[in-house]
Protein backbone atom coordinates (compact mmCIF):
# COMPACT_ATOMS: atom_id res chain seq x y z
CA UNK A 1 0.00 0.00 0.00
CA UNK A 2 1.32 3.41 -0.91
CA UNK A 3 0.37 6.48 1.10
CA UNK A 4 0.79 9.94 -0.39
CA UNK A 5 2.93 12.59 1.28
CA UNK A 6 1.51 14.74 4.08
CA UNK A 7 2.69 17.84 2.24
CA UNK A 8 3.96 18.80 -1.22
CA UNK A 9 6.39 21.71 -1.56
CA UNK A 10 7.00 23.12 -5.01
CA UNK A 11 10.17 25.19 -4.85
CA UNK A 12 10.99 25.05 -8.56
CA UNK A 13 12.43 28.32 -9.83
CA UNK A 14 13.53 29.38 -6.37
CA UNK A 15 17.27 29.46 -5.68
CA UNK A 16 19.18 28.37 -2.57
CA UNK A 17 18.43 28.75 0.32
CA UNK A 18 14.66 28.81 -0.39
CA UNK A 19 14.04 25.06 -0.92
CA UNK A 20 15.72 23.91 2.30
CA UNK A 21 14.19 26.82 4.23
CA UNK A 22 10.74 25.70 2.99
CA UNK A 23 11.52 22.17 4.13
CA UNK A 24 12.56 23.43 7.58
CA UNK A 25 9.38 25.54 7.91
CA UNK A 26 7.28 22.53 6.95
CA UNK A 27 9.08 20.37 9.52
CA UNK A 28 8.05 22.85 12.22
CA UNK A 29 4.34 22.37 11.57
CA UNK A 30 4.43 18.64 10.85
CA UNK A 31 5.22 15.69 13.10
CA UNK A 32 8.13 13.24 13.11
CA UNK A 33 7.36 10.45 10.69
CA UNK A 34 5.36 12.69 8.38
CA UNK A 35 6.35 12.58 4.74
CA UNK A 36 7.15 15.65 2.63
CA UNK A 37 7.57 15.75 -1.11
CA UNK A 38 9.95 18.52 -2.17
CA UNK A 39 10.30 19.69 -5.77
CA UNK A 40 13.25 21.96 -6.53
CA UNK A 41 15.59 22.75 -9.41
CA UNK A 42 18.42 24.63 -7.69
CA UNK A 43 21.44 22.28 -7.93
CA UNK A 44 22.37 23.18 -4.34
CA UNK A 45 19.61 20.86 -3.11
CA UNK A 46 21.70 17.88 -4.22
CA UNK A 47 24.05 18.65 -1.34
CA UNK A 48 21.97 20.53 1.16
CA UNK A 49 18.82 18.42 1.35
CA UNK A 50 20.88 15.30 2.31
CA UNK A 51 22.98 17.40 4.73
CA UNK A 52 19.84 18.88 6.32
CA UNK A 53 18.26 15.42 6.63
CA UNK A 54 21.37 14.03 8.37
CA UNK A 55 21.37 16.91 10.85
CA UNK A 56 17.65 16.64 11.52
CA UNK A 57 17.42 12.85 11.64
CA UNK A 58 15.19 12.79 8.55
CA UNK A 59 15.33 10.09 5.87
CA UNK A 60 15.31 10.56 2.12
CA UNK A 61 12.96 7.85 0.91
CA UNK A 62 13.56 8.62 -2.74
CA UNK A 63 15.09 11.15 -5.07
CA UNK A 64 14.32 11.43 -8.76
CA UNK A 65 15.39 13.97 -11.34
CA UNK A 66 13.74 14.94 -14.62
CA UNK A 67 15.16 17.75 -16.76
CA UNK A 68 16.84 19.33 -13.75
CA UNK A 69 13.76 19.17 -11.54
CA UNK A 70 14.52 17.13 -8.43
CA UNK A 71 11.82 15.40 -6.43
CA UNK A 72 12.75 14.35 -2.91
CA UNK A 73 10.45 12.27 -0.75
CA UNK A 74 11.50 12.84 2.84
CA UNK A 75 10.32 11.29 6.08
CA UNK A 76 10.81 13.81 8.87
CA UNK A 77 12.70 12.90 12.01
CA UNK A 78 12.78 14.20 15.55
CA UNK A 79 14.89 17.24 14.59
CA UNK A 80 18.17 15.86 15.88
CA UNK A 81 20.64 13.51 14.17
CA UNK A 82 19.69 9.84 14.28
CA UNK A 83 21.73 7.85 16.79
Amino acid at each position, binding site marked *: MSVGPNLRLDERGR*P*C*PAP*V*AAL*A*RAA*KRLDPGDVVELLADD*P*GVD*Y*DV*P*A*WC*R*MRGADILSKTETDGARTFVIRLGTGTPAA
Partner: protein
Amino acid sequence: MLSAARGALEAALAEGWADPAALHHAGRRAGLLLDAARTSIARSLGVRPEQVLLADSPAAAARAGIAGLVPESTTIAAPAVEQAVVLDALDSMARGPVRIADVDELGRVRPDGLAGAGAVCLQLANREVGTIQPPAPDGIPWFADAAHVVGHADPALWRERDWTALAVDPVSFGSCPGVGILVVRRGWRPPERVMRGWLGGMPNIAAAIAAATALEWLEGHGPAQAERHRLHVDRIRAAVAGIADVQVLGDPVDRLPHVVTFSVMYASGEALVTELDRRGFAAASGSACATEEARPSHVLAAMGAYTGGNVRVCLPYDVEDATVDRFIAELPSAVDAVRGPL
Protein backbone atom coordinates in the same frame (compact mmCIF):
# COMPACT_ATOMS: atom_id res chain seq x y z
CA MET B 1 50.42 40.99 2.91
CA LEU B 2 53.05 41.34 5.63
CA SER B 3 54.61 44.80 5.64
CA ALA B 4 58.12 43.29 5.85
CA ALA B 5 57.41 41.28 2.67
CA ARG B 6 55.95 44.31 0.90
CA GLY B 7 59.03 46.40 1.73
CA ALA B 8 61.32 43.63 0.46
CA LEU B 9 59.24 43.31 -2.72
CA GLU B 10 59.55 47.00 -3.52
CA ALA B 11 63.30 47.03 -2.90
CA ALA B 12 63.81 43.85 -4.93
CA LEU B 13 61.84 45.24 -7.90
CA ALA B 14 64.44 48.00 -8.12
CA GLU B 15 67.44 45.67 -7.79
CA GLY B 16 66.38 42.34 -9.26
CA TRP B 17 64.45 43.14 -12.44
CA ALA B 18 66.92 41.56 -14.88
CA ASP B 19 67.14 38.05 -16.31
CA PRO B 20 69.66 36.13 -14.17
CA ALA B 21 70.79 34.21 -17.27
CA ALA B 22 72.03 37.45 -18.83
CA LEU B 23 75.75 38.22 -18.64
CA HIS B 24 75.46 41.94 -17.90
CA HIS B 25 75.90 43.45 -14.50
CA ALA B 26 72.17 43.74 -13.78
CA GLY B 27 71.68 40.10 -14.75
CA ARG B 28 74.43 38.92 -12.42
CA ARG B 29 72.96 41.00 -9.61
CA ALA B 30 69.54 39.42 -10.24
CA GLY B 31 71.14 35.98 -10.13
CA LEU B 32 72.78 36.68 -6.80
CA LEU B 33 69.46 37.88 -5.39
CA LEU B 34 67.74 34.71 -6.60
CA ASP B 35 70.44 32.56 -4.97
CA ALA B 36 70.07 34.54 -1.76
CA ALA B 37 66.29 34.07 -1.77
CA ARG B 38 66.60 30.31 -2.21
CA THR B 39 69.22 30.05 0.51
CA SER B 40 67.11 32.07 2.90
CA ILE B 41 63.93 30.07 2.16
CA ALA B 42 65.89 26.84 2.68
CA ARG B 43 67.23 28.03 6.02
CA SER B 44 63.75 29.05 7.20
CA LEU B 45 62.29 25.70 6.18
CA GLY B 46 65.17 23.68 7.65
CA VAL B 47 66.36 22.16 4.36
CA ARG B 48 69.40 22.56 2.06
CA PRO B 49 69.25 25.24 -0.69
CA GLU B 50 69.46 22.59 -3.45
CA GLN B 51 66.20 21.16 -2.16
CA VAL B 52 64.34 24.41 -2.78
CA LEU B 53 62.92 25.00 -6.26
CA LEU B 54 60.86 27.99 -7.28
CA ALA B 55 58.19 28.26 -9.97
CA ASP B 56 55.97 30.89 -11.58
CA SER B 57 53.03 30.04 -9.33
CA PRO B 58 51.98 27.64 -6.58
CA ALA B 59 50.01 25.74 -9.24
CA ALA B 60 53.14 25.34 -11.37
CA ALA B 61 55.08 24.17 -8.31
CA ALA B 62 52.35 21.62 -7.54
CA ARG B 63 52.28 20.31 -11.11
CA ALA B 64 56.06 19.88 -11.15
CA GLY B 65 55.95 18.31 -7.70
CA ILE B 66 53.47 15.67 -8.86
CA ALA B 67 55.12 15.12 -12.25
CA GLY B 68 58.52 14.48 -10.67
CA LEU B 69 57.13 12.05 -8.15
CA VAL B 70 56.52 8.77 -9.84
CA PRO B 71 57.40 6.56 -12.75
CA GLU B 72 54.74 5.80 -15.33
CA SER B 73 51.68 3.67 -14.74
CA THR B 74 51.71 3.87 -10.96
CA THR B 75 48.36 4.22 -9.18
CA ILE B 76 48.18 7.64 -7.54
CA ALA B 77 45.70 8.16 -4.73
CA ALA B 78 44.47 11.54 -3.46
CA PRO B 79 41.66 12.58 -1.13
CA ALA B 80 38.64 14.31 -2.64
CA VAL B 81 39.48 17.44 -0.62
CA GLU B 82 42.84 18.22 -2.29
CA GLN B 83 43.09 21.70 -3.79
CA ALA B 84 41.47 22.02 -7.20
CA VAL B 85 44.87 22.63 -8.87
CA VAL B 86 46.13 19.32 -7.48
CA LEU B 87 43.06 17.40 -8.63
CA ASP B 88 43.24 19.09 -12.05
CA ALA B 89 46.94 18.26 -12.35
CA LEU B 90 46.21 14.62 -11.53
CA ASP B 91 43.48 14.57 -14.13
CA SER B 92 45.65 15.93 -16.89
CA MET B 93 49.06 14.48 -16.03
CA ALA B 94 48.68 11.09 -14.46
CA ARG B 95 49.83 8.31 -16.75
CA GLY B 96 48.50 5.59 -14.49
CA PRO B 97 45.20 5.13 -12.66
CA VAL B 98 44.05 7.86 -10.25
CA ARG B 99 42.08 6.91 -7.16
CA ILE B 100 40.11 9.56 -5.28
CA ALA B 101 39.82 8.69 -1.59
CA ASP B 102 36.79 9.53 0.54
CA VAL B 103 36.95 11.81 3.56
CA ASP B 104 34.99 11.79 6.80
CA GLU B 105 32.62 14.55 7.93
CA LEU B 106 35.57 16.58 9.28
CA GLY B 107 37.30 16.45 5.91
CA ARG B 108 39.95 13.95 7.03
CA VAL B 109 40.96 11.28 4.53
CA ARG B 110 39.89 7.73 5.34
CA PRO B 111 43.19 5.83 5.58
CA ASP B 112 41.93 2.79 3.67
CA GLY B 113 41.36 5.07 0.67
CA LEU B 114 45.12 5.57 0.29
CA ALA B 115 46.26 2.04 1.13
CA GLY B 116 47.93 0.10 -1.65
CA ALA B 117 48.55 3.09 -3.95
CA GLY B 118 51.94 3.46 -5.63
CA ALA B 119 52.09 7.18 -4.77
CA VAL B 120 49.89 9.72 -3.01
CA CYS B 121 48.98 13.38 -3.19
CA LEU B 122 47.98 14.25 0.35
CA GLN B 123 47.78 17.78 1.71
CA LEU B 124 49.14 18.33 5.22
CA ALA B 125 45.98 20.19 6.18
CA ASN B 126 42.86 21.34 4.41
CA ARG B 127 42.97 25.06 3.73
CA GLU B 128 39.19 25.40 3.52
CA VAL B 129 38.09 23.79 6.76
CA GLY B 130 41.43 23.60 8.61
CA THR B 131 41.45 19.87 9.37
CA ILE B 132 44.95 18.39 9.68
CA GLN B 133 45.45 15.22 7.67
CA PRO B 134 47.16 12.05 8.90
CA PRO B 135 50.56 11.16 7.40
CA ALA B 136 50.63 9.25 4.12
CA PRO B 137 51.21 5.49 4.23
CA ASP B 138 54.89 4.63 4.82
CA GLY B 139 57.38 4.08 2.08
CA ILE B 140 55.63 5.47 -1.01
CA PRO B 141 56.31 8.71 -2.93
CA TRP B 142 54.23 11.50 -1.43
CA PHE B 143 53.39 14.93 -2.84
CA ALA B 144 52.31 17.12 0.08
CA ASP B 145 50.50 20.43 -0.37
CA ALA B 146 51.56 22.66 2.53
CA ALA B 147 49.51 25.77 1.66
CA HIS B 148 48.34 27.48 4.86
CA VAL B 149 50.51 25.09 6.88
CA VAL B 150 53.94 26.70 6.55
CA GLY B 151 53.80 29.98 8.46
CA HIS B 152 50.80 28.89 10.54
CA ALA B 153 50.94 25.35 11.89
CA ASP B 154 53.56 23.75 14.15
CA PRO B 155 56.69 23.27 11.95
CA ALA B 156 56.83 19.63 13.06
CA LEU B 157 53.87 19.06 10.77
CA TRP B 158 56.05 19.43 7.69
CA ARG B 159 59.56 18.86 9.09
CA GLU B 160 58.88 15.47 10.60
CA ARG B 161 56.75 13.93 7.90
CA ASP B 162 58.12 11.72 5.18
CA TRP B 163 56.99 13.53 2.01
CA THR B 164 58.94 13.41 -1.23
CA ALA B 165 57.90 16.82 -2.55
CA LEU B 166 56.27 19.67 -0.64
CA ALA B 167 54.51 22.65 -2.24
CA VAL B 168 54.22 25.95 -0.40
CA ASP B 169 52.04 28.89 -1.46
CA PRO B 170 53.64 32.19 -0.34
CA VAL B 171 50.29 34.03 -0.44
CA SER B 172 49.14 31.73 2.36
CA PHE B 173 51.87 33.06 4.67
CA GLY B 174 51.52 36.74 3.95
CA SER B 175 53.65 37.22 0.85
CA CYS B 176 52.65 38.09 -2.73
CA PRO B 177 51.58 36.06 -5.78
CA GLY B 178 54.05 35.36 -8.56
CA VAL B 179 56.06 32.51 -7.08
CA GLY B 180 55.48 28.98 -5.81
CA ILE B 181 57.90 27.03 -3.65
CA LEU B 182 58.62 23.34 -4.12
CA VAL B 183 60.82 21.50 -1.61
CA VAL B 184 62.11 18.14 -2.79
CA ARG B 185 63.81 15.15 -1.26
CA ARG B 186 65.61 12.12 -2.62
CA GLY B 187 63.53 10.25 -5.18
CA TRP B 188 62.02 13.29 -6.84
CA ARG B 189 63.13 13.93 -10.44
CA PRO B 190 62.81 17.27 -12.24
CA PRO B 191 60.19 16.87 -14.99
CA GLU B 192 61.36 20.01 -16.79
CA ARG B 193 64.36 22.29 -17.14
CA VAL B 194 65.48 23.99 -13.96
CA MET B 195 67.52 27.18 -14.31
CA ARG B 196 69.25 28.34 -11.17
CA GLY B 197 66.54 26.75 -9.09
CA TRP B 198 63.65 28.14 -11.15
CA LEU B 199 61.27 25.72 -12.89
CA GLY B 200 60.62 27.13 -16.38
CA GLY B 201 59.92 30.72 -17.28
CA MET B 202 61.62 33.96 -16.30
CA PRO B 203 62.32 34.06 -12.56
CA ASN B 204 60.22 36.49 -10.55
CA ILE B 205 63.04 37.47 -8.26
CA ALA B 206 61.14 40.16 -6.38
CA ALA B 207 58.39 37.69 -5.45
CA ALA B 208 61.03 35.17 -4.31
CA ILE B 209 62.71 37.80 -2.12
CA ALA B 210 59.34 38.79 -0.64
CA ALA B 211 58.57 35.14 0.18
CA ALA B 212 62.00 34.67 1.78
CA THR B 213 61.49 37.82 3.86
CA ALA B 214 58.04 36.74 5.03
CA LEU B 215 59.38 33.33 6.08
CA GLU B 216 62.22 34.96 7.96
CA TRP B 217 59.76 37.24 9.79
CA LEU B 218 57.65 34.21 10.68
CA GLU B 219 60.59 32.35 12.21
CA GLY B 220 60.48 34.89 15.02
CA HIS B 221 56.80 35.77 15.05
CA GLY B 222 55.02 32.67 13.73
CA PRO B 223 54.56 30.73 16.98
CA ALA B 224 53.05 33.68 18.86
CA GLN B 225 50.80 34.50 15.90
CA ALA B 226 49.60 30.89 15.78
CA GLU B 227 48.87 30.87 19.49
CA ARG B 228 46.75 34.01 19.24
CA HIS B 229 45.00 32.74 16.10
CA ARG B 230 44.17 29.49 17.86
CA LEU B 231 42.51 31.30 20.78
CA HIS B 232 40.62 33.64 18.45
CA VAL B 233 39.32 30.76 16.35
CA ASP B 234 38.29 28.83 19.47
CA ARG B 235 36.23 31.86 20.50
CA ILE B 236 34.74 32.33 17.02
CA ARG B 237 33.82 28.63 16.79
CA ALA B 238 32.10 28.76 20.17
CA ALA B 239 30.22 31.94 19.27
CA VAL B 240 29.10 30.59 15.89
CA ALA B 241 27.91 27.35 17.48
CA GLY B 242 25.63 29.48 19.67
CA ILE B 243 23.69 30.75 16.65
CA ALA B 244 20.67 28.62 15.75
CA ASP B 245 20.90 26.34 12.69
CA VAL B 246 24.60 26.78 12.00
CA GLN B 247 27.05 24.01 11.22
CA VAL B 248 30.67 24.68 12.27
CA LEU B 249 32.98 22.71 9.99
CA GLY B 250 36.34 20.96 10.30
CA ASP B 251 38.15 19.39 13.24
CA PRO B 252 37.68 21.54 16.37
CA VAL B 253 41.11 20.67 17.79
CA ASP B 254 43.44 19.09 15.25
CA ARG B 255 43.27 22.00 12.83
CA LEU B 256 45.07 24.96 11.30
CA PRO B 257 45.23 27.80 13.83
CA HIS B 258 43.88 30.60 11.64
CA VAL B 259 41.00 29.15 9.60
CA VAL B 260 37.35 28.87 10.60
CA THR B 261 34.50 27.78 8.35
CA PHE B 262 30.80 27.44 9.01
CA SER B 263 27.53 27.11 7.14
CA VAL B 264 24.52 29.19 8.10
CA MET B 265 21.44 27.22 7.15
CA TYR B 266 18.58 29.03 5.38
CA ALA B 267 20.88 31.90 4.39
CA SER B 268 22.60 32.67 1.10
CA GLY B 269 26.40 32.49 1.26
CA GLU B 270 26.70 35.32 -1.22
CA ALA B 271 24.36 37.57 0.79
CA LEU B 272 26.15 36.74 4.03
CA VAL B 273 29.62 37.49 2.66
CA THR B 274 28.31 40.75 1.19
CA GLU B 275 26.72 41.69 4.51
CA LEU B 276 29.97 40.91 6.37
CA ASP B 277 31.93 42.94 3.82
CA ARG B 278 29.61 45.90 4.41
CA ARG B 279 30.56 45.63 8.08
CA GLY B 280 34.27 45.60 7.26
CA PHE B 281 35.01 41.85 7.35
CA ALA B 282 36.53 40.16 4.28
CA ALA B 283 35.29 36.57 4.32
CA ALA B 284 35.08 33.91 1.61
CA SER B 285 32.35 31.39 0.85
CA GLY B 286 32.23 27.89 -0.59
CA SER B 287 28.52 28.12 -1.37
CA ALA B 288 27.47 27.59 -4.97
CA CYS B 289 25.94 31.06 -5.24
CA ALA B 290 29.26 32.64 -4.22
CA THR B 291 31.44 30.83 -6.77
CA GLU B 292 32.05 31.54 -10.42
CA GLU B 293 31.21 27.98 -11.46
CA ALA B 294 27.88 28.05 -9.56
CA ARG B 295 28.90 24.80 -7.86
CA PRO B 296 29.56 24.47 -4.17
CA SER B 297 33.11 23.91 -2.94
CA HIS B 298 34.23 20.36 -3.75
CA VAL B 299 35.64 20.17 -0.21
CA LEU B 300 32.29 20.85 1.45
CA ALA B 301 30.56 18.47 -0.97
CA ALA B 302 33.05 15.66 -0.24
CA MET B 303 32.51 16.10 3.51
CA GLY B 304 28.74 15.88 3.11
CA ALA B 305 28.56 19.28 4.79
CA TYR B 306 25.77 21.78 4.41
CA THR B 307 27.03 23.97 1.54
CA GLY B 308 24.57 26.87 1.63
CA GLY B 309 25.28 29.99 3.69
CA ASN B 310 28.94 29.06 3.87
CA VAL B 311 31.45 31.50 5.35
CA ARG B 312 35.20 31.00 5.57
CA VAL B 313 37.32 33.31 7.70
CA CYS B 314 41.09 33.31 7.46
CA LEU B 315 42.64 35.42 10.22
CA PRO B 316 45.44 37.74 9.09
CA TYR B 317 48.67 38.10 11.04
CA ASP B 318 48.50 40.81 13.70
CA VAL B 319 44.69 40.75 13.71
CA GLU B 320 43.57 42.91 16.61
CA ASP B 321 41.61 41.47 19.52
CA ALA B 322 39.05 44.24 19.03
CA THR B 323 38.44 43.15 15.43
CA VAL B 324 37.73 39.57 16.52
CA ASP B 325 35.51 40.85 19.35
CA ARG B 326 33.55 42.96 16.88
CA PHE B 327 33.18 40.02 14.48
CA ILE B 328 31.79 37.86 17.26
CA ALA B 329 29.47 40.63 18.40
CA GLU B 330 28.14 41.45 14.94
CA LEU B 331 27.81 37.99 13.43
CA PRO B 332 24.35 37.22 14.90
CA SER B 333 22.88 40.43 13.53
CA ALA B 334 24.58 39.89 10.16
CA VAL B 335 22.96 36.44 10.03
CA ASP B 336 19.56 37.86 11.00
CA ALA B 337 19.90 40.52 8.32
CA VAL B 338 20.21 37.98 5.51
CA ARG B 339 18.22 35.03 6.85
CA GLY B 340 14.55 35.08 6.05
CA PRO B 341 11.92 34.32 8.70
CA LEU B 342 11.39 30.65 9.38
